[in-house]
């Protein structure tokens, strides 16, 4: 999608209640969300968000990624005014949160991770309730817009409880954008959606983005985040691990290709470690990682690199010990794994 891409280092801060940033001086970019040392501690000791700093600029799609329990939902709950920050400053749409959360409501749309609507109401009744809740004057027009956008027109008389999973998800999203919000927060909006519903959702997000709505999106679908987001923020253990454009993030772990090699199960741990050590010595530690008996090598020219890698393997464990080899482009998921590691997270996400 075509849009201006801005990186944090290029901004000049203009002192005002709401900072103004610009790339060329004449083209100002407003920050819709500004977090300064934003911190959330539960029960006086569980640090969910640890003094994070970031901005979400007007009109951008801001991908907010992180493993389970990283602090994404907690951050979102503070942005939406549901939770109070323990420390730090949070400006949303020029208002201090949570003190001025009432002033933000009319401009903030929120689509929670869970399916949140009244089960016993029809699609139309749920939308009508939220249109009333937002005091919409053009309620019929906005309900029609939301039902059209999310493909709910034909099911507006159906009881929400009787909808399919994908239809429920679409209703969940429609309720968040009825009131033409300036900032739309989407927390895992595609969870449980079928591919068709997902495709419709991503198209809708692109359309909303083109209408200059700022979108803060959390998702575990890296490919989607890569495609839709102007900038990506990766949060882990309550801290921001990386924040940049998807292209810049991918450069961090090396431009080029990813080679993934799976070895047969009979290969001993010693042999496996020996191969890994040799590959690290050849390509550098930063570019070699592993999960069980699979090795991942990041390199600029994958095809040529294979002529180096295969002899290393053959000389260590002999021929016919490779189960599978794949060669592909570097992805955001590689960046994500590279930054957050590949260990399963025992820590449960603190549900906001």
């Amino acid at each position: 999608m075509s849009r201006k891409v801005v990186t944090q280092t290029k901004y000049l801060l203009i002192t005002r209640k709401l900072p103004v940033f610009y790339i060329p001086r004449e083209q100002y970019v407003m920050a819709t969300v500004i977090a300064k040392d934003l911190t959330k501690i539960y029960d006086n000791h569980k640090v969910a968000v640890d003094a994070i700093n970031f901005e979400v600029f007007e009109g951008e799609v801001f991908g907010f990624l992180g493993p389970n329990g990283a602090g994404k939902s907690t951050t979102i709950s503070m942005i939406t005014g549901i939770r109070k920050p323990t420390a730090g400053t949070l400006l949303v749409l020029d208002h201090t949160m949570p003190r001025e959360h009432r002033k933000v409501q009319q401009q903030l749309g929120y689509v929670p991770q869970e399916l949140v609507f009244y089960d016993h109401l029809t699609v139309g009744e749920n939308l009508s309730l939220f249109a009333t809740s937002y005091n919409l004057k053009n309620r019929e027009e906005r309900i029609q817009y939301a039902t059209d956008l999310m493909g709910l027109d034909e099911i507006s008389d159906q009881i929400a409880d009787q909808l399919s999973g994908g239809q429920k998800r679409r209703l969940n999203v429609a309720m968040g954008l009825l009131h033409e919000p300036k900032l739309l927060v989407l927390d895992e909006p595609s969870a449980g959606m079928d591919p068709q519903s997902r495709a419709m959702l991503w198209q809708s997000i692109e359309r909303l983005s083109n209408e200059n709505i700022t979108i803060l999106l959390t998702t575990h679908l890296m490919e989607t985040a890569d495609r839709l987001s102007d900038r990506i923020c990766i949060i882990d253990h309550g801290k921001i691990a990386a924040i940049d454009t998807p292209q810049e993030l991918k450069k961090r772990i090396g431009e080029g290709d990813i080679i993934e090699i799976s070895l047969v199960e009979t290969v001993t741990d010693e042999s496996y470690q020996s191969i890994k050590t040799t590959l690290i010595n050849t390509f550098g530690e930063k570019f070699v990682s592993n999960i069980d008996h699979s090795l991942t090598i990041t390199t600029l020219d994958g095809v040529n690199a294979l002529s180096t890698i295969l002899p290393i393997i053959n000389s260590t464990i002999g021929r016919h010990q490779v189960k599978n080899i794949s060669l592909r482009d570097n992805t955001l998921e590689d960046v994500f794994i590279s930054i957050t590691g590949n260990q399963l997270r025992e820590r449960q996400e603190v549900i906001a």
Partner: protein
Amino acid sequence: MRRLLELTKVQLLNLPRNRSMAFATLVFPLIFIGVFGLAMPNGVQNNATLNIGIINHDLGIPESTIYVNQNGTQLNDYFFSNSFINIVDDVTYDDNTTSIFDVTHYDIANFEDAKSDLQKNSISALLIIPEDFSIGMLAVIRSAFNTDANMTGITNNWLNYPNPTYQTTIQIMGDPTVQDFSIASSILTTIIDSYFNLGADTEGHNVLMNTDIAVDTFSVFDYILPGLIIFGILNNMGSTAAFAMRDVEGGILRRLRITNVSGTEYTLSIILSQLVFAIIQIPIFFGVAILFGFPPTIRIAYAFIFAILVSLSVTGLGLAVAAISKSQDTVNSMATLVSLPMAFLAGSFFMVPDVILINNFFDGNSLGIFDLIAAKPAIEGLRLILIGGQGLGDIAYQLLLLITLTIIYLLLGITLYSRKHLSPED
């Protein structure tokens, strides 16, 4: 206002579209009153006579007091207790043949025998009429005529009358944990109230002299019905709390919180919808009671007001329970922990001895600890209306106390619920 109405409509739509809600509102009263009606120890149609004792200490009207009845006859040495005891002796159940009481009359000297019979459960209650019973009655009569501008021409002949504020105390002894005592004491209380209320009426005064007071007849089921209805309404606390908690756990409340819906609008929508549910449910309670033999009467309309007020107070407590409960799983048991003791302490099934906090709190009524449970003045009010046959004017104390408590309960519920679920979370 539009948001409030829309939210209330949303809550109300639960009734036609949510089976458990429909069951709780429409079927529960049917089953509840029906089961109790069928399971009454003596059956609805088979009223048992209760054994009670009476000791009469009444010294009558002193000779120094001149009392003239409506025929101009001077009645010194008149004993009001005699007419009162006649009523207790003669009062019957609905069938007009079965006596409610089999009365043993004890001499003053035989008080110990009476106590012994009480301990052996030979009698279920002992009514002790005090020495100043007749003076107390005269005080009530005088208070009635004091408010009569014309004094009906007979007060000039009255001398040495007791002060209108003079009060006499009638004791009913017995074991509150014995059901027969609860029934007997309730009926006796109703008769006493009716008797003295008649004295407080200028027309009733004339009737009183004929010693032929009509006391409504009723069955054991009639007696227990007010407590049952209030117990049934208290039972709604769990569904109200679950109702309020469901929106919390489902996340809809959080989502509504970031719209223009205010906490007040949301809580008011819960209260209004619960009020409508009560307006639908309470007539079913009374309707089923009538099916089981409760006499249909216009007084049920008054009782309806009491039941509605209790429903509102239960809504307040339901909101409070939703505020202190951790999840929807625990909300029902938490509500039961609150509602069940309340039902018993308020006297839904039998009277529980109270601890007096303030004597002569309002209009001669004392305020006990359990009077602070809204269900208690409600049960008392319902009994006075449905069994005692008294109008709203006669139960001002119970009504005012219930209104006050309902407002307090609602404010408590709204405050706790708003703080816990409608403010930004820590």
